[in-house]
């Protein structure tokens, strides 16, 4: 099935201050498309958590948002260090964030659980030393 619309973003891994820009842009685009506020909120939260993870843990990456007739798909792809134990990473409270990142308010270990909670489908593919791809879908 081909997507109706695609939005692509390069997520800068060095710029902490602008982290979240792709998600904020997507929120705007979805509003313009007239989607309902709760769907927009779910997509925004899930995408932001994934975007921030790429910045904090993987030196940035790429984000694609595909809009299909019945769902919105978010694909976040990075060439970072990968996740050794995905099951452990998915647990609430698990975090490897360093102290200076924690002092900014990150590192609660809630990002991946939030992504799972706010989407209808989520898949993590990761290889240590190669990178991580997270695919999420929110039904419309």
């Amino acid at each position: 099935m081909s997507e109706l619309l695609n939005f692509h973003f390069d997520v800068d891994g060095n710029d902490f201050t602008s982290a979240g820009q792709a998600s904020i842009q997507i929120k705007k685009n979805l509003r313009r498309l007239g989607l309902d506020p709760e769907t927009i909120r779910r997509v925004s939260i899930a995408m932001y958590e994934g975007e921030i993870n790429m910045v904090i843990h993987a030196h940035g990456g790429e984000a694609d948002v595909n809009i299909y007739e019945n769902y919105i798909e978010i694909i976040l792809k990075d060439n970072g260090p990968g996740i050794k134990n995905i099951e452990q990473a998915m647990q609430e409270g698990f975090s490897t964030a360093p102290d200076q990142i924690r002092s900014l308010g990150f590192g609660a270990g809630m990002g991946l659980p939030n992504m799972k909670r706010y989407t209808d489908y989520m898949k993590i593919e990761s290889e240590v030393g190669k990178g991580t791809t997270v695919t999420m879908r929110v039904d419309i």
Partner: protein
Amino acid sequence: MTVYELSQNSQFNVLCLPEPEREISGVYIGDLLSWVMGRAQGDNVWITIMSNINVIAVASLSDVSCVLLAEDVTLEENILKTAIEKGINILSTPLAAYETAIKISGMI
């Protein structure tokens, strides 16, 4: 109650108010960003002592009606500018989070 009405209380100071008519549905208190992201409801007032730039993104994406900086926490000028651009209301108060929440609870 709207954020504008909240801001009229003498304990609350306006740092910026680009969307004064936003309704307030309740309060969420927290400083861990992804915790707030996951638990705050849309239209909540978010009480926090965090004041870095990422607060603006979290406020925008979680769709809270206003950020309320407790204990007289201040914001850098450039962060305030971003907040105005993104339509994020920000108030501050000398009160601690607990007293702030009680005050709002009595108002809504």
